[in-house]
């Protein structure tokens, strides 16, 4: 890859990741102004689902960065990983907020009941809670301060992604094609990591013995 392209990579990915949000705001504008729009009969629900879908997609894209970087030997790709992760968090937060505002109308009692009673909600909620420390510690300063513990903490992203997929499986009523596709992508990305990890381990073992 040319360096010129690499320097535009970050703004490019930023704009691309922002597109769904821009589209959504445009649709909301149309809805609010009573113009023809693509939000259907129940725009609130459409918005919640839209944000949920993009939260999951950004999450999987984030998890794809490292494998792609290594497989393609495209080092600069590492620079968009944090940004994609933050988008995953942003869309998840938007998903939750729109659910709370537009569906539950800020009835916090009801939110409590829903979280306790409905497995797919508490799984989603747990996933969101898991993303919060990751987002808060995503800056360079925290990275430097936390050192090895930063890496450890950010391993949390894997169980969080698994919870998100569980959320999707549990809320699906009838056709599992979509959750299945997302799960295959997730399992491939995780399989790659396990493979790498097992490749590395014996060497590390020997190195330890040697030292």
């Amino acid at each position: 890859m040319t360096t010129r392209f690499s320097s535009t990579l970050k703004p490019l990915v930023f704009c691309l990741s922002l597109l769904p949000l821009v589209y959504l705001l445009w649709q909301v504008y149309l809805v609010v102004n009573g113009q023809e729009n693509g939000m259907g009969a129940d725009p609130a629900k459409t918005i919640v689902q839209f944000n949920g879908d993009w939260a999951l997609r950004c999450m999987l894209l984030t998890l794809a960065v490292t494998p792609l970087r290594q497989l393609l030997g495209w080092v600069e790709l590492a620079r968009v990983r944090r940004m994609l992760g933050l988008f995953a968090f942003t869309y998840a937060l938007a998903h939750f907020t729109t659910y709370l505002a537009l569906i539950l109308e800020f009835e916090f009692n009801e939110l409590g009941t829903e979280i306790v009673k409905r497995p797919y909600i508490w799984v989603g909620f747990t996933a969101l809670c898991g993303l919060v420390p990751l987002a808060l510690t995503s800056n360079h300063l925290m990275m430097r301060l936390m050192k090895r513990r930063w890496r450890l903490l950010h391993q949390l992203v894997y169980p969080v992604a698994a919870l998100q997929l569980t959320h999707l499986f549990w809320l699906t009523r009838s056709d599992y094609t979509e959750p299945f596709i997302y799960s295959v992508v997730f399992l491939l990305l995780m399989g790659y990591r396990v493979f790498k990890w097992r490749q590395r381990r014996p060497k590390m073992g020997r190195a330890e013995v040697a030292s």
Partner: protein
Amino acid sequence: MLIKKPDAFKPSEITPEAVYLQRRTFIQGAGLGLGAMLLPGMGMAALDANQPIKDIARYTGDWQGSTLAPDWLRQKVSQARPSRHLAQEPSTPWDIVTTYNNFYEFGTDKGDPAEHASDFKTDPWQVEIAGQAEITGSFNLEDILKPHDLEERIYRLRCVEAWSMVVPWVGFPLADLLKRFKPTSKAKYVRFETLFDPKQMPGQRSRFAALDYPYREGLRIDEAMNELAFVGVGLYGNAMPPQNGAPLRLVLPWKYGFKSIKSIVKIEFLEYRPVSSWERSNPKEYGFYANVNPQVSHPRWSQASERRLPTSLFSPNRRPTLMFNGYGDEVAHLYAGMNLRNDY
């Protein structure tokens, strides 16, 4: 497909349309006359038998989909008359009733059926009648519908997903249809089945569908014979759009929407209780009865309230859900003595 000659209808029973129309007028005139006798002092102008009592809700836009329905059916539907089952609530607009559908055979998103069913072939159409009845066999849709005068009923529709609509259906009482086949004393239940045609119905091709197709639904015979149970063949004065279950479907307003099975090809009278499709796929979440009941929460959705469509962004139009969707007067007696928490 071999169509058994229906021994139910003798040629003499097949009424030429002109006579049929005349008879309608006569019956209607008689009805109005009786009404006028009971209500002296009402304007005599209302006695003009050719005038409908109140015109039914009609869609007058430029949607072309109902051209898929045969002419005779469109004409029959257009002659529907109002009935006494007219919910006193604003109807959900046509555009929403026909683009916000759960019809998983055509996809799981609400907009999928409108998109994927647009050229769904519903003519010719046969319905098989089977099981514990004196008259069984395959019948052409025309023969199924012929003896029935169509009426409009405006019913509330409550989906288990906690949204609701108000829909002006055109159709006729299910009991009138079932009785023609003379169910025997062994007929304790009725099972209905939707068309199975993966070529036309992409949802049936999915390898990851939790529902076993063909879609099946069932009713106890007394539920099926209840006066509210309705066979829908039209909507807003139009032949039923494919995404809403053309050419004929059930409309059971006191039950969650999924009981109102669409695009029916088979009706079977049974001695035993059938298992419905959702019940089979997930018995903890979906029962056989599926009566609208705000007190029994579904594992996914609280059923205490509903969002009446159309919703607007900042006012979700939420309202409390009524027991039996507000139709308790007509149907509560069917469930007397039952524990509706167990028989959900």
